[in-house]
């Protein structure tokens, strides 16, 4: 995975300069994290129109909090924590975790798919995945995405989310369970919907 899933590497010297307020370094840090932040926000909150605002919030928080980045994790892991907190605040403000906008609208794929048929199939899979994600609570969704999409260890997820390890394990477990159940349900609904006209005919 790269690009939208992994941030570009940036030197620790550049990070230190950005932390001290060097504009060029700050710009370079944001450039390196831009796609990663955008991709993560889409996965955490869905493709609603709020993502642009949230991205702006995350970037500002990254810069103002950078003096406290101690290099104990990679910069992108630290930025992921900010994304999770911003997404959490977003859901708290909206008092809901349901994504209203059609989930996969506007999304593209990192590896180009070879045919329109494949593209349609991939889009349907993505749509189903995002709909299944909507059934998770925001903390479950964050923990699930960090673990199964970004491949973080449970300790890393706990650290990113600022939660106890036991709580994180619970969230991941119930996130996985809810996700697989929802996916099963959505797929069966799809089959039923396709079958209906035939039965009527």
């Amino acid at each position: 995975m790269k690009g939208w899933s992994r941030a570009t590497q940036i030197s620790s010297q550049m990070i230190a300069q950005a932390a001290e307020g060097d504009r060029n370094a700050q710009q370079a840090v944001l450039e390196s994290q831009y796609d990663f932040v955008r991709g993560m926000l889409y996965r955490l909150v869905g493709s609603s129109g709020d993502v642009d605002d949230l991205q702006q919030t995350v970037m500002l928080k990254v810069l103002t909090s950078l003096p406290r980045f101690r290099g104990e994790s990679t910069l992108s892991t630290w930025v992921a924590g900010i994304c999770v907190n911003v997404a959490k605040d977003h859901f708290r403000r909206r008092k809901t975790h349901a994504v209203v906008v059609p989930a996969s609208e506007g999304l593209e794929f990192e590896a180009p798919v070879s045919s329109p048929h494949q593209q349609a199939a991939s889009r349907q899979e993505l749509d189903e995945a995002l709909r299944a994600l909507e059934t998770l609570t925001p903390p479950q969704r964050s923990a699930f995405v960090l673990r199964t999409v970004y491949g973080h260890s449970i300790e890393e997820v706990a650290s990113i989310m600022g939660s106890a390890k036991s709580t994180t394990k619970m969230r991941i477990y119930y996130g996985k369970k809810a996700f697989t159940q929802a996916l099963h349900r959505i797929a069966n609904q799809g089959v039923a919907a396709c079958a209906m006209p035939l039965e009527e005919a």
Partner: protein
Amino acid sequence: MGSSCKQFRPLFPEHSAALLAEDSRRRVDAHLKGCASCRDEHRRVHSALQALRSAKPPPIADTQRTQQIQEAVRKAQLAPPAARFRGWRVPVGLLAVAAVALLVFVRMDADDAQPQVSLVAGRLIANGTPMSAGEAIAIGAAIEAVGQESSRMRLDDGSSFLVQARSRLRVSSAAGYLVMLESGEVAFEVARQANGRTFQVHTPEMEVRVVGTRFTVAHEAAVGTRVRVDSGIVEVRVGDGGVWTRLRSGDERLSREASSPSAGRAAVSRDEVPADEVREGEERVARARDQAPTARQIRQRLRTGEVGSARAMIREAQGRRGLNRAELAELAILNVEADLAEHRHAAAIDGYLGVHRRYSGTPQAETALFAAAQLALDHGGAARGRSLAQRYLRTYPRGRYAEEADALIRVLSRNSDEP
């Protein structure tokens, strides 16, 4: 779907991401070989996760991207440093008392971005350089009081602030001055501000704004932020989304009281507080500062497995005179952590509940109850964990861990079958 399918299906996402341990992966593989329905399910999960991993947001024009980045950089140059990352929410590990004190008096000037210092008494450093009269404070510079004594500085409008030893703050200026108190205690005396200008003090937990008054702000990681107004009026709120509350002369407010069920009583008139309690409050920061290294040392011993030695240090600390309830609660929690270090989980659960019972009203009591619920979940069974989480919510409906306790109860209630 057989009972074993129900057991294996939640493992499919991690199996698909190659994150399962070797043993679990083999068991899933063996099950998939013999179960067609699970193979379908696994394929579906795998495709969905694959789609999620490779999906990317709609493209954005380079100009728009550059504009967004430049806008963030511009705002960051004006903004104060953000509040500290809320790692302290992790219940047990972050109870160490970190008490430092500082007192600040700042002046705001509508046209002057950098406050001018007219007097420095004591040892203050800004970004590592000693401060002296006649200098401007660089916006956002870390100001620290070094040495054993408090230091005072006065700004050229007559406002001044006193910084206690080992205190740390930053000063920024946008639509007014903003003092970011990272640790310590601050007693402010602020000159009346020009129209439209504000003077604010932020701590990791609380915000205070003022027009012209004298007040004290103290922040200790273990007990939160305390604001006391000596004269005039200030407004405070907890967190960046809280409601502003007006405090008048003699009022006091604690950040963690404000999020507890006693929120309505949080603004306490000084007249209602016994004199010895006020004095105790004045002395608490200094005592906590003395004790902080001890708590740290005890935890270090626990981490290195020297439990006996840690317990001896706890007993010694408990023998000190004049400890307040929060400090005693902290020591009791250290005792529980010693139980945990010895893997005595049942005793630790009881210990946390004992801390909650004996020291009700302290921040440690709240944390102890939630820690007991979490520990019970891991080592005492879901039923006890749920029951304790419910007890936590009944006791602290707006508590620091209410959201997590609520989520815990909901998932446990929805899924009676435990992992």
